[in-house]
């Protein structure tokens, strides 16, 4: 029998940090990931990680204020305080683990400027900070003695009398189904970016954990808050990091004007992301773009700086759109990037389900509220990953494993999967259903939203769910059946899509990432509250939760 005190699902930064903490806390710990840990999406983070270091004259309160303001006053201030206070130590821990952060002239950690913050507090490794952190975290995971299930796909949860007591997983290489028993489960499964098409997210970001938890009765929160990043490539949707603007790049319209003057005269290109994305979209809609894009201009930064600090994104531009940012401006546009919402947790990662935790992008604490600041997400993963790991290790000490019929569980899951594989061909394809979903979401739940569009998407989602019930799997084999995995992932994505669209339709104001043309203003009186969505007997049920305010009263946002 495979069993562990703490089972972490997902081996990105949040998951590995949680597992290392749980192991250090004395719990027998395992981590399971559908791809090898270093292939996790955390490695795509380019720009950096925020922390206010007091020995630089920075204060955590300043960082917290910027985060609260960036969240458009939807972030929970008690949680933001926890994160910003812990940031300094979390960052130093990563340095001690071996991360090769860029340094300043005195050999101390160097910083760069990032959007929505009044001072430079973003620490970085060139423009591949996420990859550098992820690989070092994996080194520490190896050292920690945590059991690793690499390339194992969690397909469902095992629930006994309403209690989660383990997971069912598919070993991708053999197609074998296993039950893994656990006292506590921590979801660290990352974002749901692929619900939208295009997206900056990797192909594996399919909201699996969010859907699994939701279907088991967990509450989701802030699901309407989907961040569109200002600088993504047309076509593939791949990201060009905010680090470019942090280092001083300009945004230009088709005539070469720095249009941000009109929208954020003080912060210009470094206003918060929702503000910049809206500005771009407004310009593009007004006909001031070229082929649906505006330009990101780095030429004045000079070759030396670009090669030292932005070399990887330069390569991306060359590889994917044939454009060298040393020599020419790159066409970019706002693109789906990050899920502020997710599985609702407290500051220790606990959800409303006993023994079930969540951390990282799949969770909603909520520290990002309506809009996440650049470089706050990596921080979120390691701070709340560690806290969940600590708490779960402690909690698992005082509980026993729940008994369940393992053979029965395995055989049920095998039958479910076999039934999926046995579906007759009907001419439909997984990829076509997915594209239908992604394009509908991107049409109606992007930078600007309105009631009519969102209702349309909800209708389209219903039709797509119908198609999903009969869509066939072409590959009938067991070994590395990626076709089957995509089929299962598509189900998870559809489970996420409806809560996103429903929450967005319900919120009748414009706040953070949600900009409604039919409700263009922020309405604090009625809508300064979280939307919580839960699976009821007859479908999703919406309710509201108050926002925690500690020391910063809401005011109008100006950048």
């Amino acid at each position, binding site marked *: 029998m495979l069993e562990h005190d703490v089972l972490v699902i997902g081996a990105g930064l949040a998951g590995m940090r949680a597992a290392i903490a749980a192991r250090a806390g004395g719990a027998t710990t395992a981590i399971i990931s559908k791809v090898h840990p270093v*292939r996790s999406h955390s490695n795509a983070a380019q720009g950096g990680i925020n922390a206010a270091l007091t020995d630089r004259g920075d204060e955590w309160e300043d960082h917290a204020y910027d985060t609260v303001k960036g969240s458009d006053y939807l972030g929970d201030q008690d949680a933001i305080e926890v994160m910003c206070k812990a940031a300094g130590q979390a960052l130093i821990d990563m340095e001690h683990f071996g991360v090769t952060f*860029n340094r300043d002239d005195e*050999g101390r950690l160097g910083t760069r400027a990032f959007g929505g913050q009044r001072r430079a507090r973003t620490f970085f490794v060139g423009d591949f900070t996420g990859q550098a952190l992820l690989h070092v975290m994996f*080194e520490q995971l190896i050292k920690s003695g945590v059991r690793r299930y690499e390339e194992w796909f969690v397909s469902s949860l095992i629930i006994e009398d309403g209690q989660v007591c383990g997971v069912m997983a598919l070993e991708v290489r053999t197609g074998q189904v296993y039950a893994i028993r656990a006292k506590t489960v921590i979801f660290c499964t990352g974002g749901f970016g692929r619900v939208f098409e295009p997206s900056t997210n990797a*192909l594996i970001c399919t909201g699996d954990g969010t859907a699994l938890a939701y279907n088991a009765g967990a509450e989701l929160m802030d699901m309407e808050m989907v961040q569109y990043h200002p600088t993504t490539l047309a076509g593939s949707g791949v990201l060009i990091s905010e680090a470019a603007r942090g280092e001083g790049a300009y945004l230009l319209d088709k005539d070469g004007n720095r249009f941000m003057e009109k929208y954020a005269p003080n912060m210009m290109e470094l206003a918060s992301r929702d503000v910049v994305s809206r500005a771009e979209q407004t310009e593009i809609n007004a006909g001031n773009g070229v082929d649906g894009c505006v330009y990101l201009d780095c030429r004045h930064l000079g070759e030396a700086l670009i090669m030292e600090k932005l070399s990887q994104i330069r390569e*991306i531009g060359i590889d994917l759109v044939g454009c060298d940012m040393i020599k020419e401006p790159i066409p970019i546009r706002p693109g789906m990037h990050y899920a502020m919402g997710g599985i609702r947790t407290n500051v220790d990662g606990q959800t409303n389900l006993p023994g079930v935790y969540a951390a990282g992008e799949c969770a909603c604490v909520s520290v990002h509220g309506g809009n996440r600041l650049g470089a706050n997400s990596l921080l979120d993963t390691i701070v709340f990953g560690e806290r969940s790991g600590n708490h779960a290790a402690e909690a698992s000490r005082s509980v026993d494993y729940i008994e369940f019929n393992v053979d029965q569980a395995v055989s049920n899951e095998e039958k479910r999967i076999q039934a999926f594989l046995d579906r007759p061909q009907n001419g439909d394809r997984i990829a076509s259903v997915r594209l239908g979903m992604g394009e509908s979401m991107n049409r109606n739940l992007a930078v600007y939203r309105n009631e009519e569009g969102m209702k349309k998407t909800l209708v389209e989602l219903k039709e797509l769910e119908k198609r999903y019930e009969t869509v066939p799997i072409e590959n009938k084999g067991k070994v590395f059946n990626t076709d089957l995995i995509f089929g299962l992932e598509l189900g998870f994505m559809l489970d996420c899509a409806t809560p996103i669209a429903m929450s967005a339709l319900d919120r009748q104001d414009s706040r953070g990432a949600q900009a409604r043309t039919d409700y263009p203003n922020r309405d604090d009186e009625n809508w300064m509250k979280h939307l919580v969505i839960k699976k009821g007997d007859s479908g999703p049920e919406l309710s509201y939760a108050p926002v925690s305010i500690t020391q910063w009263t809401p005011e109008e946002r100006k950048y």
Partner: protein
Amino acid sequence: MDVKLRVQRFDPEAADPKPYWEDFTATIEDNGTVLDALIKVREDTDGTFSLRCSCRSSICGSCAMRINGHAGLACKSQAKDMMIDGVITVEPAGNMPVVKDLVVNFDTFWDKIMAVEPYLKPEGPEPEAEYIASNEAMLHLSDVTSCIMCGACFSDCTVLEVDPSFLGPAALAKAYRFTADPRDGDENGVSKDRLEELTKPSGMWDCTRCMECVQACPKGVAPMDRIMALRDQAIEAGFHNTNGARHTEAFSESVQHSGWLDELRLVPKSLGMTNVSALVGYAPIAIQAITHGKMPPIIHKKIPDSKNVGKIFDKVEGPKKR
């Protein structure tokens, strides 16, 4: 743009599991990548076709494969640049067993990474704040830590092809990432134990400097250069007593002294003058060389102006302890 692909397939569950070739055509954007074309095939044409991929932006390390015979990332290769006579040939990465189609088994790759104890091992007390280190030292390391563990170098390494016990380019580059880190090892940043381990057989001295890994690497890690730097570090740290180290020292000593290579003395010097059993092992080769008229001259004369060669050495190494 239409892209013609010639793909090596393999289905372990087939009645008679054998690799075979299959041709596909995929329509992609003009500046699309080989990966875009392969994904199109999988999504629109043949759902049974398996490959690993995720980020589409050369950072997750999933999509290394052989494209037209050379390892690289499919998502970093523009399709239009890869066509040879209108076709792109795609095979799984080499030096690893194929699981299915383009998916290979990375177990041995990771075993070798694990073998170098791939985590920082500082020996002194930890500072309260960050370690103080120069930006140059960190930038130098970052060039190596930008390795995404894609296995392209491993796929094309010519030594691994004949000697699977070789640690290989990625693991050795990873090892260098620690031996060159001022935070690893003793208070002077000397990771002596690591270097000693790496000088053993199958380690740093087994690389033949064929350059394949440098060419294959999509991230500019240049594993071979790191291996050469490891060798310098090992000799510096006092590990002269290995075949490889002796070979290097004998080689440079000869060139420095006479301006050219004294082949006759290179072998015994590399193996160790007192290593009788190994020397006897080389006797048949020596005899063959003599009978084929390939005997190096017994008296090794200096070339004219050999002292200029010595000056080059002085310039590079400083007029030192000779």
